[in-house]
Every structure is written in C-alpha cells, then in structure tokens.
C-alpha cells in the first residue's frame, strides 16, 4: 500500500450559480521518502491540488489517504511551505518556528528539548544566526529558509512545498534548491513540490507529475527521473538522462499542452 494515495479526486469551485471544474479525476500514489514535483501552466489547479492534500481546500469527490487513513482537515503531519513564506511578521525567526514546535510537541517534549529542536531546524537551513531577527529584517531567501525550517520542525509525514522558490532570484533559488536536496538526502522526507520551473522539477524530483491545462485539469503524464543522487547541478548540465527528462517536460508543456492564453 502506498504512503499517500490521491484517489479519483475532483474539485469544483462553486460561486453562486456558476460552478467551475478545476480538477478532474486526479489519482496519484506516492511512496515514503519520494520527492514528487507537480508542474503545469499557471491556473491549471496545481496549487489547488496541494491545498487539497494539505486539507486547506475541501474535496468535491474522491479522497486523499495518508497511510491508509483519509485526511479531510489540515494538520501538522502535512506541513506546508507557503509560496510567500507566510511568516508572522510580529514574531522573531525563532518564535515563528517556536509557534509550530510548541503547538506540535507541547505535551511531548520538555522546554529544553523544544529549544534544541527549534535551533536544530534553524541550523538545518543555516538560519540559526538570525534567530532574533524579525521577518522584515531578513531577505526573501532567508524568509523562505525559515518557512522551510518551520515546516520541517513539525516533523511532518509529508512536506508540501507550494512554489517555494518562485518569488526568489535565480542565484538564491539555486542555493535553496541545493539546501532542499541536502535536507531530503539527510532526513529522507516525503516531499511534494508545486513548481513551474522545468529545471527545478528535473533537478529535485524522483517523479514529475505534469498537469494538463484547466478547467478540468487532469494528470497528463508522470515522468520518472532516473538520476542518481546526490545530484550535482553542474554535472547534470551535460547528462543525457537529465537532458532527456528536461526535453520530455518541455515538450509536454509547450507542444502538447500549450498554454493558449499565455500568448
């Protein structure tokens, strides 16, 4: 049995009398420790899919099962790293992570243990030095690092990343991608990442889920990325498997499911 099972999920948004079908018959099975990317043109409903797994958006029909149990509500075992970091601006970096840690481990860990766990996670994303800063005082890349630390600190069964590097410049993005790869290698988390960056998807993922254009978006294709880990950005540039995978995704996105409105 698979770790996470998305079973024939439909999603229709109802607004007054008009109903918009967003997702149609999505089925996907994800194994423990897998890194799966979901890629598609904007508006195809990939963020909606992530929110459904997170439990933030209710399902119209179908089900999401985590370890065989249906999930309907949001919860810390499916931590989300939000696109715009979503740190609380009135709390310091430390307190932002502490909010999550105290809530999730409040009854189970002692105060000292929780402190160590917060610092451990901040150090994991190299943000321990900025623990007393407020979000407004650190850069966009640093904020997203803290967002990742907050997600990891919940010790989730699945870490959901909603276009985590979308708002960052190319250099910072590459930096954070390397960090995420390292964290994935160390902790072996199951991760699902929404992205619209083909290189990012190929570099990070074990599998790439490609979505067709909405409305009624479906899973068009699932691509296995058979690249050995650890992966090195520079070595991959000329790697044949990498180039082939990249080409497959690009062809899917720009040949067969071209985004009409984008022109």
């Amino acid at each position, binding site marked *: 049995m698979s770790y996470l099972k998305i079973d024939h999920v439909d999603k229709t948004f109802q607004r007054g009398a008009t109903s918009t079908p967003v997702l149609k018959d999505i089925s996907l099975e994800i194994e423990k420790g897998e890194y799966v990317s979901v890629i598609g043109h904007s508006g195809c409903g990939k963020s909606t899919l992530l929110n459904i797994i*997170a*439990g*933030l958006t209710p399902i119209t029909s179908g089900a999401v099962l985590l370890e065989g149990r249906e999930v309907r*509500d*949001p*919860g*810390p075992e*499916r*931590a*989300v790293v*939000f696109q*715009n970091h*979503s740190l*609380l*601006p*009135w709390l310091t970096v430390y307190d932002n992570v502490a*909010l*999550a840690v105290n*809530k*999730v481990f409040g009854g189970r860990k002692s105060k000292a243990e929780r402190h160590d766990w917060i610092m451990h996670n901040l150090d994991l994303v190299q943000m321990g030095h900025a623990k007393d800063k*407020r*979000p*407004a005082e650190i850069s966009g890349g640093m904020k997203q690092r803290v967002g990742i630390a907050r997600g990891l600190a*919940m010790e989730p069964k699945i870490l959901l990343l909603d276009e985590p590097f979308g708002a960052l410049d190319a250099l910072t993005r590459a930096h954070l991608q390397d960090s995420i790869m390292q964290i994935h290698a160390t902790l072996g988390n199951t991760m699902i990442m929404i992205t619209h960056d083909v290189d990012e998807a190929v570099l990070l993922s074990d599998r790439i889920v490609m979505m067709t254009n909405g409305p009624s978006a479906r899973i068009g294709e699932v691509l296995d990325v058979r690249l050995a880990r650890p992966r090195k950005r520079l070595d991959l540039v000329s790697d044949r498997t990498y180039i082939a995978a990249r080409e497959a995704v690009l062809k899917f996105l720009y040949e067969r499911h071209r985004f009409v409105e984008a022109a």
Partner: protein
Amino acid sequence: MGRAVLKEVETGATVVALPGAKPGVVPLPAPARKPLSSRLLPWLRAILVNVLPPLVTVALIALFWQIAASGPQSSLPPPTKIWEEAKDLIVEPFYWAGSQDIGLGWRILVSLQRVAIGFSLAAIVGVLLGALVGQSVWAMRGLDPVFQVLRTVPPLAWLPLSLAAFRDSQPSAIFVIFITAIWPVIINTAVGIRNIPQDYRNVAQVLRLNQVEFFFKIMVPSAAPYIFTGLRIGVGLSWLAIVAAEMLTGGVGIGFFIWDAWNSSRLSDIIVALVYIGVVGFLLDRLVAFVGAIVTRGTLVN
C-alpha cells in the same frame, strides 16, 4: 492621515527654524571639543526646530488676544487678567483646601479615573465584539446595522437613560464614556480581523490552533494596528464626552468645574481649565499612539 499632517508640520518647521539655529553652530570651532559638540548640536537643533515654532505661535496668539481683549467693552479677559485672577490654578495644580476648593490637577485626575474605567471596559468589550463581527459573517449581518445606527447617537443623549438605569452620577458618567468609545473600537477591530491575510489563517489551520490560541496568537497581533487606530479615536472621544457629561452630573471632575465657574462668572478659571483639558487630551492621544507603536512594532512591515 493624522501622521501625514504631522509630518508636514515638522517639515515646515525645519524650514522656518534653520536660520535661527545656525548662529549656534558657528561659535564652536575648538577642535578639542568637537566630539562633544557634534554630539550635542543635533540634539539642540532638534529641540530648537521642534519647540521654537509652537512657542512663537502661542506667543503671537497671546499677543493678538491681549490686544483684542484689552478694550473697556471687551467681554472676555485678556491673558494678563487671567494670570492675575487664576494664578493659583495655574501655578498650583495640586492644592487642597476643602472639598470643592481643590487644584485643577485633582479634578483632572478624577475625570481621568472615570475615563480610565469607561475606556478600559470599552476597549475589552469592543475588541471582543469587533472580533466576533469580523470573524463571523452572520454576526456581522446581525450586529453591524445595529452598531451603525447606535454609533451616531451623540454621547450626551445616553446620559438621561443611564441616569435612570444606574440612579447615580458616577456609573452614569462611566457608561457614557463606555458607549462613546466602544464604536470606533468595534468597527476598527472588525475591519482589522477581516483583513487578516489568508496565509496567516492557513498557518493557523495547519498548526491546528484552537479558537483561543488563534485569537491571541494570530488575530490580535495581526489586527493590532487597526485596533489601536480604534482605541486612539475612542480615547479622544471619551475625553470629549467626559467633560460634557460632568457638566450635567456634577461632582469633582473638570467638566463640573467649568460649569461651576460659568455660574459664578469666573471666566479666567474657565480658560485655564480649557488649556488643562486640551493638554491632557493631547497627552492621552499620544499615550495610546505610543503604546500602539510599541505593540505593533514590526506588524505593518512585511
């Protein structure tokens, strides 16, 4: 709005006072003193730039007033006469010579105490009601129209009703403060809560924060800038209302003092009391703004 206007005044003040401040810069050329003077000068300059313009304005007003009110037929006393007649009130705010012969400082404190009780109640109830209206669509549909009608009722119109209900002037005055200050608190809190970004709500949902945790950890800090806007308007309104309410209820407050002075034609005392009220109202406003600035530190910038 208020902040923008303040800034303009400050900028204007800089332009006016610079020529006056400059001569102070010139006679300090000694190199040994340079560190000290370079540290002190900005301070001196800042004080001059900020304090001098209002002093000049006040002096000009007083001069104009003196000229205008000095004629034999003048119905209002000029500043010099006020100084002669009400010197004890100005110089000794805290004297005590019998139950009704006390300094204005004491009267202000009595009024402030009423405002403190009424305003604190309004702040607590207002934030809770505002949170309810901001959070629940049905509460908003049910309560908002009622609030919108009630908030237009002038503070003093509540006084007869509260006198009838409480049968005592002290709780009635406090109730008038409460009912005056609560509307801006409710309305601003509700707006602040409706404006909590969906992201923060998502974070709370993923963490499974319960209602109480959500209220204290997300709602209040996130809506704090709005709440403090409401509190600031509220405290200003309560200070307006207390003076009027005390004129009617009597007792020891500053409002009754003015009414009493009018009945015995002590115009100078009234004018001194007006200055007291103005200064205290200004300080109250600044106090709430100051607390707000500390509490909402970092909340607005993201």
